[in-house]
């Protein structure tokens, strides 16, 4: 029964359909707001749906030299990883998350799956641009995973220390972290956690692969890199995976830093959660994307090691010392 419920959660409510609707809505709004910031009209809000419909009507081409199994499997792996991930995101006041033990660690392991799927697809496509995209994806992934680990650790340690009464401890259950914050105030307002929150804001464009960190898929340099050889339904699957990932990373940010609720009615809380995700997306992805160019891969690596890692390290040390 639990297994069935888990699958339902992955397919319908926080994962699967719900995450897809929210993710596509966010993507459409993102493009619209970006266009408005650049004084354009922009595409309609349902553009991601239209793009997916279009891609489903196109034929699938597989390169002769590609490793067919890995090439076909890569988008499925990326999509499935994110659909599972979404089921772990607690929606405060509505849904508690699939697992209540150590799900922060599970999320840390599951989050790089789309990037790994992209690398798999890129290297299986046997295209030199795919190979370049592969190496860039790898470098930028190593760069942004370090601050992410420190952010998660500082959140877990702050809550764990407080729960165990000032002793050494870490709490890796997102549900308990959310509950602790509902009693003791959101971590986003905690001065100790502000550097970690800023680091998370910088981590978001890195992991979503948008400007200024869209280096692996740079159209003008490596003609979309790993995605170069994909077309039709397979590419649509990559886009769906990316929409799910938008929901996951934004939801994780809201759950870690601003999980407050208003009232007890679930619909209000659900809308409040989506609104918070939306604000997080607008400030960390859309505005940054429409105002910046693209880093070189070495600059991006140095930037990630210098700025967000140091900020997250600050928070971690402060949590450890206080």
């Amino acid at each position, binding site marked *: 029964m639990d297994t069935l419920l888990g699958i339902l959660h992955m397919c319908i409510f926080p994962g699967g359909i719900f995450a897809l609707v929210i993710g596509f809505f966010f993507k459409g709004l993102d*493009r619209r707001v970006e*266009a408005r910031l*650049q*004084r*354009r*009209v*922009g*595409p*309609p809000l349902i*553009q991601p*749906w*239209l*793009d997916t*419909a*279009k891609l*489903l*009507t*196109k*034929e*699938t*081409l597989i390169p002769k030299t590609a490793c067919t199994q890995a090439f076909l499997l890569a988008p499925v792996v990326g999509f499935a990883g994110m659909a599972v991930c979404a089921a772990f995101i607690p929606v405060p006041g509505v849904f508690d998350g699939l697992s209540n033990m150590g799900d922060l660690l599970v999320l840390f392991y599951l989050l790089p799956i789309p990037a790994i799927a992209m690398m798999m697809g890129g290297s299986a496509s046997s295209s030199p641009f795919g190979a370049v995209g592969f190496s860039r994806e790898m470098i930028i992934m190593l760069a942004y995973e370090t601050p992410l680990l420190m952010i998660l650790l500082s959140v877990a340690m702050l809550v764990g220390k407080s729960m165990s009464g000032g002793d050494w401890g870490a709490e890796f259950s997102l549900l308990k972290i959310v509950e602790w914050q509902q009693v003791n105030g959101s971590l986003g307002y905690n001065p100790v956690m502000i550097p970690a929150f800023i680091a998370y804001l910088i981590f978001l464009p890195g992991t979503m692969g948008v400007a200024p960190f869209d280096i692996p898929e740079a*159209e*003008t340099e490596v*003609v*979309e890199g790993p*995605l*170069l*050889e*994909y*077309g*039709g339904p397979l*590419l649509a699957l990559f886009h769906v995976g990316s929409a799910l990932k938008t929901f996951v990373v934004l939801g994780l940010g809201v759950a870690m830093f601003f999980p407050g609720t208003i009232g007890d009615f679930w619909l209000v809380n659900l809308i409040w959660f989506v609104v918070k995700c939306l604000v997080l997306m607008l400030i960390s992805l859309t505005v940054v994307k429409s105002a910046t160019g693209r880093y070189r891969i070495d600059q991006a690596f140095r930037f990630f090691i210098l700025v967000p890692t140091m900020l997250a390290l600050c928070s971690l040390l402060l949590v450890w010392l206080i």
Partner: protein
Amino acid sequence: MALDDLLKKNSVRSPWLFRINAGSCNGCDVELATTALIPRYDVERLGCRYCGSPRHADIVLITGPLTTRIRDQVLRVWNEIPEPKVTVAVGICPISGGVFREGYSIDGPLDRYIPIDVNVPGCPPRPQAILEAVALGLKIWKKKLGLEG
């Protein structure tokens, strides 16, 4: 079948553009890339997007008179674009050869090798003409999908 029709009907609202330079003097490319498709005319409102890969393309815009050196590459890239696709010849060069007509290094006109759906004459064409060609291309795409034009 209803789902299939729904997908087809909506798919024409998401045309992704791909450019091929078949030996152009760059005049049409400037009109195309930096004038017709910039914020001022905003083709993104039609759902258009530039894509870097021929595998993602729906509407392919070809400039240039098709020189002998570039012919095979152009044909190869064009063949990699998945069906259904719409081909637009931008500028007078791919249509007739333009000022380079009957030159020793020219293998055009383009429709000796590739079926062209929309011609945009001009040297270079006006941005409005290019946008109209994209809009016409959408109608042809609809026909290719089996919907009424």
